[in-house]
């Protein structure tokens, strides 16, 4: 990590590859169709600001925060093409990624961010609130709406 902060290209490459599963998971689930753009912008923001990170051990939490911010920003910039009607019109296969994606597409980027951090990354509500810089009550209400929406889609 220190080598990456000093500008060692090989260490930077290793860091990019190490962080990419975390960032890819967040950007894929929040930005959906724009996930690749969000991931690229998140990685560029992480690497471009690496020298400003004072505590190298905190790199994953810092990268997660940047990935969520970029994924929400990119998702809001370009609306997702939701095809949830198609999901409702046929038998839902709960095991396929395509169905999950269609259900996620019906949620707002902010709702997806809360859902991803809480249910995919397993963060506590207080941690999610801190990461998103919103009150814990906002996290609870977004999570409730997201889960309810998710459940309704899957049951329909």
């Amino acid at each position, binding site marked *: 990590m220190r080598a990456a902060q000093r500008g060692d290209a*090989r260490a930077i*490459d290793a860091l*990019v590859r190490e962080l*990419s599963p975390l960032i890819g998971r967040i950007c894929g689930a929040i930005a959906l169709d724009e*996930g*690749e753009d969000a991931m690229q912008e998140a990685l560029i923001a992480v690497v471009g600001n*690496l020298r400003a990170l004072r505590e190298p051990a905190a790199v994953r939490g810092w990268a997660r925060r940047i990935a969520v911010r970029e994924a929400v920003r990119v998702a809001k910039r370009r609306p997702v093409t939701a095809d949830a009607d198609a999901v409702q019109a046929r038998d839902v296969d709960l095991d396929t990624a395509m169905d999950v994606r269609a259900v996620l597409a019906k949620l707002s980027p902010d709702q997806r961010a809360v859902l991803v951090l809480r249910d995919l990354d397993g963060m506590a509500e207080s941690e999610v609130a801190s990461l998103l810089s919103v009150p814990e009550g906002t996290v609870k209400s977004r999570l409730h709406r997201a889960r309810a929406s998710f459940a309704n889609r899957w049951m329909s």
Partner: protein
Amino acid sequence: MTWPTVELDPITRLRAIAAAFPNAGVGEVVLDVPFDRAWAWLMDFERTTSRFDTMVTNVRVRQRTDTTAKLVVRQRGNPFPMPFDVSIEPGFCMMRASGRLFLVLMAAVPEGDDRTRYAHAEAIPLPGLGRTRARVQRMVDADLRRLRRNIGTY
């Protein structure tokens, strides 16, 4: 339940690494050559690098494995040969000059069956050289124009 995810592709990897260097020049083109042919041509350093890199006059390969190479590169206007350590993967290549004097990144992905999306970055990875970015970017742009013209030729 499977959540949607995004894999790291070579071009995103290149752009992320380049972001660490304030003077990095980065460019991207689509080549009218299938990926396998384009990548094989690009990795044939001795025969092809000087056909698109405007600064390079000659390349000698001192060592080569499937994943690494050691090159000696002669550049226009530089009387001293520059040794490079190279790491190679399918679609991704990093070339680092000794003493961190120069960094070259090359990345490619298939663009359909018949074409290749190629990204190229160059940087001088030393601190305090941010002002040279415009010059490095012009070099990269010129390299990519030559590459589009010469890809596949020997």
